[in-house]
C-alpha cells in the first residue's frame, strides 16, 4: 500500500521537478525583466512542491531514498512525469501555454487533495493550492494577451496550441498505483478533473480567440517511463553535477 502511494507521489513529484527545471531554463533569457522574475518564481514553487512529494515518498518507501536520490540519481525510464512537462520551452507562447495546461489541471487536483485521508498530503495540498492560483492567473493572462494580440503573437500562440494540445490527454491518466490510492481516499482521481480542466481552457481560449483542437492521436507514455528524445538532454543537464561528482554535497 505505502509502495503504491510512494510511486504515485514520485510520478507527481516528477511532473513538478521537470516542469520546474524547464521553467528555470528561462532564467536570464526571458523576453523582459518581469518575466525573468516570474518564471524562476514559479519554478521555485514547483521545486518546493517536488521536494515535499519526494521526501514523503522516500519515507513511505522506507528504503532510505532521499529527495536528492529521487531527483538526481534515477535513469530516464524511472521518471514517470507527463510528456507535456518535458516538452522544450520553444518560444514564450509555448512556455506559457504549457504552464496553463498544467496549472489548470493541478488547481482542482490540489483542491481535491486537501480532503485526502493522509494528513501529510492534505497539508501539502493546502499550501500548493494557494501557489497554483498565481500560476494559472499569470499563464492565463499571457495566453489571452498573446492570442488576442498582434498578428505575430496570435500566429505563435496558435502554433503552440497545435504543438502541445496533443499531450494534454495524459494529464488524466490513472496508473495502477494511483488507482489503489484513489480507492483508499488518499489521492484524487485525475479523471475527475477533466470537466473543470476543459471548462477553464475553453473559457481562456474563448477570450484568447483560440480554438480547442480535436486531437485524433493523443500522445502519452511518460507515466510508463517512455519519454520523448528531449528528455535525455534535459536529464543530462539536471543531473550533471551528481553524475560528474558522485555523492557531492555543499
Amino acid at each position, binding site marked *: 500500500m505505502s509502495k503504491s502511494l510512494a510511486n504515485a507521489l514520485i510520478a507527481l513529484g516528477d511532473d513538478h521537478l521537470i516542469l520546474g527545471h524547464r521553467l528555470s531554463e528561462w532564467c536570464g533569457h526571458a523576453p523582459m525583466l518581469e*518575466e525573468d*522574475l*516570474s518564471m524562476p518564481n514559479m519554478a*521555485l514553487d514547483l521545486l*518546493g512542491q517536488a521536494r515535499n512529494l519526494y521526501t514523503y515518498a522516500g519515507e513511505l518507501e522506507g528504503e532510505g531514498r532521499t529527495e536528492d536520490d529521487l531527483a538526481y540519481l534515477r535513469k530516464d525510464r524511472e521518471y514517470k512525469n507527463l510528456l507535456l512537462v518535458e516538452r522544450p520551452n520553444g518560444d514564450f507562447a509555448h512556455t506559457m501555454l504549457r504552464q496553463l495546461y498544467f496549472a489548470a489541471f493541478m488547481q482542482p487536483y490540489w483542491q481535491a487533495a486537501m480532503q485526502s485521508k493522509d494528513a501529510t498530503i*492534505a497539508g501539502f495540498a*493546502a499550501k500548493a493550492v494557494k*501557489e497554483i492560483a498565481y500560476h494559472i*492567473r499569470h499563464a492565463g493572462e499571457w495566453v489571452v494577451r498573446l492570442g488576442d494580440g498582434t498578428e505575430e503573437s496570435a500566429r505563435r500562440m496558435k502554433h503552440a496550441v497545435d504543438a502541445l494540445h496533443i499531450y494534454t490527454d495524459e494529464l488524466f491518466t490513472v496508473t495502477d498505483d494511483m488507482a489503489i490510492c484513489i480507492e483508499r481516499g488518499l489521492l484524487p482521481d485525475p479523471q475527475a478533473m477533466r470537466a473543470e480542466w476543459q471548462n477553464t481552457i475553453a473559457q481562456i481560449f474563448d477570450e484568447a480567440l483560440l480554438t480547442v483542437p480535436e486531437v485524433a492521436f493523443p500522445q502519452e507514455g511518460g507515466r510508463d517511463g517512455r519519454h520523448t528524445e528531449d528528455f535525455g538532454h534535459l536529464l543530462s543537464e539536471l543531473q550533471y553535477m551528481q553524475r560528474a561528482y558522485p555523492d557531492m554535497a555543499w
Partner: protein
Amino acid sequence: MVAAAPLTTPPTLDRARAWAAAAGVPDPEIPCVTVADLGILRDVEIKDGKAIAKVTPTYSGCPAVLAIELAVEAALLDAGFDAKVERVISPAWTTDWITDQGRQKLKEYGIAPPQKGSNSKLSLFGETVVACPRCNSSNTRKISEFGSTACKAHYQCNACAEPFDYFKCI
C-alpha cells in the same frame, strides 16, 4: 545576543524565554521583520529539557526556509537551550498571520503589506487596491505578479512614481 545560562528557571519562564529568543530572529530576505512578526514561528515548547521551535514555511519552495530554521536553532542555542526545530506544514501559512506590528514594519521598510482575508478567492483573483508605502496614494499599478522574492509582487505608484514591492496575499 542573550548569554548562555544554565537551565535553572521554572518551566513556564523557560518557555517564555525560549520564545523570546526564537521570536527575535529576523527574516533573512526581509530583515526588518522577525519570524514572529511574519507568523512563521508557530510555537516554542519545552519538552524533556529541549526547546522545540515549530516553524512553518511561507511558500513550498521558499529558499529561506533552511536559513530561518538554522537561525532559530542558533538563537535558542545562544540562549542556553538544547534546541530542535520542527517544520510544520499544516495548517498552511497565510499572510493573515502577519501581525499588525509586522505590517507596520513592512510599510516603513517600503513594502506594501498584504490585504487581510487572504483565503478568499476574491483577494486572489479580484483586483486589489494596494496603497503606496511611500505616499499612501491608492493610485498604483501592478508591474508584475512576481517580484524579487516568492512572497512579493512588483508595483509602481502612479502618484509619486515610486516602484515598490507588495507582499502578496496567500
